[in-house]
């Protein structure tokens, strides 16, 4: 039995009938057409699907679309404002914090949460803050540098 849901995604209203079992990540990617968040594991380990739900980073592969009913979702597509990159996006670019780019949308959303919780984290705090997101390309060092650099710019 399908259920009607209404979700605000990146500031825009979306309303659809969905199956209760539809995962939020599939709703975002296949119904709303936002393919920025990715699927990497389906077990909430890799974090490629991370989006913000009411301002909190969540792994959208392990929640249902119906659980997002009436709530606010921010995906990577909604991060840049009026064509201006978010400082984290800019920092990821400057610091070469991505290679294949597959983990990047989730990594940036988690980093966003990390800096919201702790605007001037130490290197160890950054590393622990990112432990729910896997990257197979970078060895994380440039990602850590990017988060540091974004934090430093925000604090400057």
């Amino acid at each position: 039995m399908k259920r009607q849901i209404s979700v605000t995604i990146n500031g825009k209203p979306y309303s659809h009938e969905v199956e209760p079992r539809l995962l939020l990540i599939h709703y975002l990617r296949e119904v709303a057409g936002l393919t920025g968040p990715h699927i990497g594991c389906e077990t909430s380990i890799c974090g490629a699907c991370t989006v913000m739900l009411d301002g909190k980073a969540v792994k959208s592969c392990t929640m249902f679309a119906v659980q997002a009913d009436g709530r606010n979702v921010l995906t990577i597509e909604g991060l840049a404002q009026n064509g201006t990159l978010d400082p984290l996006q800019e920092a990821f670019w400057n610091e070469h914090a991505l290679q294949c780019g597959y983990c990047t949308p989730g990594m940036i959303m988690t980093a966003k949460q990390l800096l919201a919780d702790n605007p001037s984290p130490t290197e160890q705090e950054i590393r622990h803050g990112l432990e729910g997101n896997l990257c197979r390309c970078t060895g994380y060092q440039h990602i850590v540098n990017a988060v540091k650099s974004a934090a430093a710019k925000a604090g400057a």
Partner: protein
Amino acid sequence: MATTVTRPETKFGKRVRRQEDPRLITGTATYLDDLKVPGMHHACIVRSPHGAARIKSISTTAAAAMPGVAAIFTGADIKNLGPVPTAASLPGLRVPHHHLLAQDRVYFVGHPVAVVVATDRYLARDAADAVEVDYEPLPAVTDPEKAIAPGAPPVHPEWPDNVAFNFHQEGGDIAQAFRDAEVVVRQRITSQRLIPTAMETRGVVAEWRAGEKSLTLHSSTQIPHLLRTLVAGILGMPEHLLRVITPEVGGGFGSKLNVYAEEALMAFIARQIHHPVKWVESRRENFTTTIHGRGHVDYFELAAKRDGTMLGLKLKLIQDIGAYHQLLTAAIPTLSVLMMPGLYRFKNISADIVGAFTNCVATDAYRGAGRPEATHGIERMVDLLAAELKMDPAELRLKNFVQPEEFPFPTATGLAYDSGDYAKPFRKALAQVDYTKLRQEQEEARKAGRLMGIGISTYGEICAMGPSIALPAGGWESATVKIEPTGKVTVLTGASPHGQGEETTFAQIVADELGVDMNDVLVVHGDTAVVQYGIGTFGSRGTAVGGSALYCALQTLKEKLNKFGAMLLKSDNVSLIGGQCVDAKTGKSVTFADMAVAAYHAKQLPPDTQPGLVATHFWEPPNFTFPFGAHIVVTDVDRDTGEIAIRRYVCVDDIGKIINPLIVDGQIHGGVAQGLGQALYENAVYDDNGQLMTGELTDYALPKAHHMPYIESSHTETPSPVNPLGVKGVGEAGTIGCSPAVVNSVVDALAPFGVKHIDMPLTPEKVWNLIQQGGRA
């Protein structure tokens, strides 16, 4: 016409941020699963839950009646299609017929048995669960040494000894080396099975156009052209009617350097159902059915003089093949043999490889592909020899290095090392860690009962794969450069980058050669209908081979541009400077755009010159390149818990000339992370029945951000004489250099307990047990 021309700053060697990043950081790139084609159906594959079993029956009746189901295919439907190909050719190689879907038996967990196609991803999965397969489980074998022991269950009934091949290679006089030896050290060393784990799993979208009889295959692959040739062969369709497109590829590491059953299956199905079909691998499928790497059991024997002079190295290598050969499976351990001399001068080697069939997924090329295994063995053996001789491991290495004046250096394995100064990066790394002081500190630590280790690896590798003679399908690479009528530049490369950043590196090369703005250069790859035939991206070849092709194509275009410049300037003495053609006498110049317009409008042409500005070059490398370097790792081991803390990770890698240091750093870091993963965390574990116990990311320990040390990476630059750019390749250096440095460091830390060797991964449990046993293990 302008009269002043300034030479722009060169881009070669600059930390330029990447051209490909804007789409990747904004979520607007298109990966395979982002593709949507009208009428697209979804496939879900029914796979074997058994390591070995006979298929007694398959019933698809219930599944076929489920909502949305369009078709179901089983082994009988694809019986007459070609097998999944292997390109490795060794004398006497046993190649089981690898059908796209299992016939009457399954050989590993994950073996595809049936494909369900439905209108929706969820419905396809529902129906796949309703396919009933009646199996009769059979005994399985998953350990390669057990597999080739007498009495093991046969993986393939036709070859009861489970031997896929035997291979022998010898160089120099190994018998004499061992007769001359004053000391011989022996060790069994394993390189465990690893799961490549690209963050994006594999996936395919196939579209059949009935009218044109053409098929477009979108696949997350590293080798679009080879895939086209080989899938056309499987299907028996003309190659030019098959188009392969690689969308954005979310990592490969060798795991997408292959031709998989699913790629041909989807192509076949699209043609059968007259609808486009998509299949995207789940992570569990990725772990059970995409190739694994490593899987070695190695028995090494190193012969030496008491003064530390190494004389010869013997190796008995048992390679876990898995149940089937994938594209290069059997060739990978032969690369290990080629690497056996390492950076050392000794000229005598002997190697025997046994390929062992097991009820596991195939092993094949995973970052480093045979070379990390070899380096791990060699660098462990050097440390074992140092321990035996009570010599400092740094001194022992320096004593045995090939010397700078000996290049090109012919090795006992038939290679010619291109260029090198092996002591240079090593001395730099030793100075950086202050090695002498570290050893003193270690002595103090030991007195205080603390376990501190210093580990060294001085590695060499074989890159820029490679001369065509050495690769089954050719080892060249191609590039086409097109200067468009507006002066914009398009590069078509036969390489297929998937994170390595060649869209940027290549734009840097073009910017320097033509004097154009990097932003005016577009690098196109991964579409066989657009790009001339190419080989692909693997074996640290993208820039060394593909970049060289580009460089040569650019030289051809520059000559042509000069002709148009000379014509426009009415001069016979012109040269290209900063995107302009300048008359050496008068200083007058014409712009790049002026020349492009002249070439395309063709109102007037230089003598013997065609209109247009397009050049293609197929670059055949005369040799491999041989990067080298030194990694030094300082560890502290917790004697109460067995936990390993990496205090310092210093690496100095010589990868030849560096085009973009920012990208190179990224390659080194990522490579080290994969080497460290092998050394400390990762292990693909099968139980005796063939179940993959590490079948999800919940169980397979991939390094996370907090597991990684800060990597202190720097370089020396010894240009390669093999190609016009002087580059050697960097994709695999970090992985190859890392694992022996880590393990040597931990063994060094545990030396007070008499520990001589530990097999990877160095889990705290393993280390703690060794401490408890006082090294008696």
